């Protein structure tokens, strides 16, 4: 850009010094009473003025063209700013909510299981001690009756407790599905961040070069089609409050209904 304006300034300077020369000649010719030559110079000066005007118009046209190009690039950026950034924020919020839920689900299961495991461990130790005394015949008949009853209760309780712990561990297992679901959402946001980066780089390059080359136009078209990726390649979980809301989303019951309507 500075190169071009320098060139234009240089041309203008040359033009002005030629004009000044001609004007001086004109004065000389008029003073000498040489009307024909004077008239010729007046005409020439008029033509020069026109050509300066055309150059100015040319410069304005170029600026306008450049401004329009920047604006075209801007419209993709403004789409990103107005639609896709808020959309991405919603998606990242979904990630926060999902990870929080998963953490609570896990912590709840752990908090419920730990006391059960502690009681199980303490009772096992107590009964093991008593069992040892029974084995070494160091136990009265009354004590043995009590021990036998406690042992029966412990075994019954133990089966139930173990089942509770198993169920809670399953809960912990299932809670880990958040990593897949939020991972897909985060990957999608990363793609958007890359898109923003490419557009910003394009904008900087454009204002550097003034005019976009055909190559850049092509890459811009490619970028435009990117966010609207085909559903066939998969788009991750549907997030409420985002562009996903415009599409019909199914829960497991809807899927079952849909598949059975298709003969499954």
């Amino acid at each position: 850009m500075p190169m071009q304006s320098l060139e234009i300034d240089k041309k203008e300077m040359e033009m002005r010094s030629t004009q000044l020369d001609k004007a001086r000649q004109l004065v000389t010719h008029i003073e000498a009473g040489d009307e024909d030559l004077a008239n010729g110079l007046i005409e020439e000066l008029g033509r020069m003025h026109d050509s300066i005007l055309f150059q100015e118009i040319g410069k304005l046209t170029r600026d306008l063209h450049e401004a329009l190009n920047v604006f075209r690039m801007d419209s993709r950026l403004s789409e990103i700013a107005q639609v896709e950034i808020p959309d991405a924020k919603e998606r990242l919020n979904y990630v926060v909510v999902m990870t929080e839920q998963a953490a609570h689900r896990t912590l709840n299961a752990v908090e419920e299981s730990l006391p059960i495991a502690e009681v199980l461990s303490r009772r096992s130790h107590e009964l093991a001690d008593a069992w040892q005394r029974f084995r070494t015949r160091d136990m009265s008949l009354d004590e043995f009756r009590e021990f036998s009853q406690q042992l029966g209760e412990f075994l019954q309780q133990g089966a139930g407790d173990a089942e509770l712990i198993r169920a809670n561990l399953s809960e912990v297992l299932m809670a880990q599905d958040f990593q897949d679901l939020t991972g897909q959402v985060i990957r999608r946001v990363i793609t958007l961040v890359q898109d923003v980066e490419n557009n910003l780089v394009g904008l900087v390059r454009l204002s550097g070069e003034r005019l976009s080359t055909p190559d850049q136009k092509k890459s811009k078209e490619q970028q435009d089609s990117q966010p609207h990726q085909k559903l066939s390649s998969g788009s991750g979980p549907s997030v409420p409050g985002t562009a996903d809301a415009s599409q019909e989303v199914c829960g497991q019951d809807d899927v079952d209904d849909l598949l059975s309507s298709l003969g499954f």
Partner: protein
Amino acid sequence: MKILIVDDFSTMRRIIKNLLRDLGYNNTTEADDGSAALPMLKNGNFDFLITDWNMPTMTGLDLLRAVRADEHLKTLPVLMVTAEAKREQIVEAAQVGVNSYIIKPFTADTLKEKIDKIFERINAAG
């Protein structure tokens, strides 16, 4: 029964593997996308395929297409377990020939129910 689990997230593969073990299916193998899974299916004598949809390189839908197009694999039962929940996607998967479809997040009961149903149908037909 030999089962192949295909998902790009290792956490999800482990969840499914554990749930299958609870259901009594101990012979499971894992692959992290369609392009890794296809050669395994071709060489592995698998009885059942459980696949995600949204994966890099080769999606679950393309894997399903490849399975249905393969002379030796075309009757392999395929269960899709995916977060892709748009109506037209489910219709597309059905058209390509999926046997059943589970939306993530899912429960252990749903997995059991769908697997039971797939093999009920196959046994009834065969």
